[in-house]
């Protein structure tokens, strides 16, 4: 493992009772990499992401993030690490009854002392920063609306703005577009990528759509039933490798055959037109 890796996972095993969610997972992520954890639901990708932010404690193994051994941290030290790692959730997880702006400033809570209630209790500098991030995600005009009046895609963009409030070095995203329609998905995914490129962020994002992962990520880590079954860079992959990826990650063989057929049919179809 090189000096520039910001995430180093080795021998990570997590069991919930008898179910093993992760088995001996190991990989590392370089600074600035955009990585997708690819797998079906139940493959362990959410659990893996949650370990990176200390939301879960491993049964065994090591999780190093930004040079810190996450499971050994607690209290103030854990919060300090979390404040350097942004997290975007599938269900957005905004407080529905608060305004958009107040939801965004809560991202900065780690840098403040004590509980805060109401916008007036946040310093002006943070409110300005929050407005800036809202502008970045294209929702400045919604700042004073209640969060639950926004559409799903807009809410997820607010959640991204909230994560940006932390000035994160790493951005984790757990199925950020699973509850969104294709168009909003597209918007959110390209927004995450743009922001990551601009700020040199390291991104680890879990997804279940192979095609989306292929077109979006620099690198794909495939998970299946708690095992890391794939770790590859996307650039320059041939057709055989793509089928291989589907094969490793998809569950049923029927599904795999269907995909294989589709991939082989397309070129032959275009030939007949010619």
């Amino acid at each position, binding site marked *: 493992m090189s000096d520039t890796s910001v995430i180093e996972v080795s021998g990570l095993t997590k069991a919930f009772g008898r179910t093993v969610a992760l088995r001996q997972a190991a990989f590392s992520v370089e600074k600035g990499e955009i990585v997708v954890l690819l797998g079906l639901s139940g493959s362990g990708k959410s659990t893996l992401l949650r370990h990176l*932010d200390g939301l879960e404690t491993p049964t065994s193994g090591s999780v190093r993030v930004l040079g810190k051994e996450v499971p050994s941290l607690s209290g103030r030290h854990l*919060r300090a690490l*979390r*404040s350097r790692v942004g997290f975007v959730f599938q269900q957005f997880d*905004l*407080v529905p009854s608060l305004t958009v702006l107040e939801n965004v400033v809560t991202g900065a809570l780690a840098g403040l002392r004590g*509980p805060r209630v109401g916008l007036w209790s946040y310093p002006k500098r943070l409110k300005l920063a929050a407005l800036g991030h809202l502008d970045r995600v294209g929702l400045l*005009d919604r700042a004073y609306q209640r969060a639950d009046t926004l559409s799903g895609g807009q809410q997820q963009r607010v959640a991204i703005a909230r994560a940006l409030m932390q000035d994160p070095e790493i951005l984790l995203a757990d199925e950020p577009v699973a509850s969104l329609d294709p168009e909003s998905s597209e918007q959110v995914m390209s927004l995450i990528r743009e922001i990551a490129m601009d700020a040199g962020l390291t991104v680890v994002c879990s997804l279940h759509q192979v095609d989306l992962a292929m077109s979006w990520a620099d690198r794909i880590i495939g998970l299946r039933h708690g095992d890391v079954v794939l770790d590859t860079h996307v650039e320059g992959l041939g057709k055989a490798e793509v089928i291989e990826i589907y094969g490793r990650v998809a569950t049923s063989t029927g599904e795999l055959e269907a995909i294989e057929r589709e991939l082989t049919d397309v070129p032959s179809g275009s030939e007949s037109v010619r």
Partner: protein
Amino acid sequence: MLCGTVLAAVVSVPVAYIAAANTTPGRGWQALGRFVTVLTRAIPDVVLAMVFVLIFSLGTLPGILAIGIHSIGMISKLFADAIEQIDEGPRRAIRAAGGSRLQEFASGILPQVLPSWVATVLHRNDINLRGSVILGYVGVAGLGLEMSFAFKSLDYGLGLGIALVMFALCVIMEVVSSVVRAAMLGIQPTGRGLGDRVARLAGRATAGRVAIAGDRIGTSVGLDTPPSSATRPAALAAALHRPWDAVRIRNTVWAWMALAILVGSVIVCDIQWGDLITVWAKIPEIAVLFWPPDFGSYDAATMFGAMAQTIGIALAATLLSLVFSIVIGSLAARNVAPNGATRTSMRLLLVTIRGIPEVILAIVLIVITGLGTQAGTIALAFGGVGLLGKLIADSFEEVKSGPERALRAAGASRSQVYASATLAQGTPALIGHGFYLLDTNIRAATILGIVGGGGIGYYLLNAGQGSNYQMVTAIVLMILATVLLVEGIAVWMRRVFR
């Protein structure tokens, strides 16, 4: 009365925090929190008032403290339940961003439970309004005291006049809760209840201005406008100040009005704050009066008989209320009532019933039927319909409309839809509300005894008036045991019928 509720509302926040399973710092704390809620609920406010009257002599402070402490139990129980039912997401998001536990609570949990907290506090205020009548009987100042004098001097005209004032107050409270709830939940009040109607009227007046204000914000900075570096900082600085649109103006006006009313109520109560400091010295000597528990001149069998009678009254009243409120409550639900007129009249009936304090009802019934358990049971049953009917109607309106639609589409009649979809979905709520009423009734039955409704309350009043405080302790312990028992059964039943 208002002061007492506010006191309870404030204290209940930390109590609920430690009592709720998902926020509690530890198991021991949770047990302590739950114990405080049960204990404060079990001790009748009359007894508390008695104690505080002893400590402070007459005045408003004993009443405020009695109502306050007694209300802590209910508010923090409901509040703790609400905390346990929140969406964990926002809270997890704040934890993931590195927020501390307290920050998680303030930013992730509190905003979610605030509407339910306000609703509970308003509801409790409603109950306390009626409760303050009975406190007059043990010498706490207020309308209740005036009324008890009126009835004691057999001046029924004056008494009923005061009762009417109380009724009007109750209806006003109902309207206020509706308006506040609608504003907090951000929903358009669509109900046909009295409160909803007033809320709608108020809303209509401001709606036009909201639309205009909304347009202005919408056009100033659109999503599609490309960010031009020169104007952006200015736009951000401009956005720092929240525009004063109609909604914000309305909310601010309401908030300041609420604050003014609270401050006003404290001033009106004319509290002797000094008493709060000087009384601590008196507590030991008064505590001695209450210990050990003793049945005094009565034998244990009489007392247990009286307790059984009280439980009997509560059970009978609950059963009676349940039967009537299923009918009235169903007809008051929007998705069950055959037409708007039925629903409106049923809702109006429920508000009217709730507006009549049970104690006043009991006193009137006693005048008619004479002393005894009959008057108490009917009074409680009647009052119960008001509360249970409303709860049932609300929870029926909240059931998912999908199954109802599906059955209607399959050609089911109105009554078939009701039985197979509405009632089936509403049953768990029905059971929960039934037990809640039983729980309330056991305590209420105690109090009704004081005005002559039969049961243990009669002995409680006797003991209190005869300065036989050891007996008061014994009776309170009996009530506590009963309430704990009912609480246990309710918890068990809820688990079984989930």
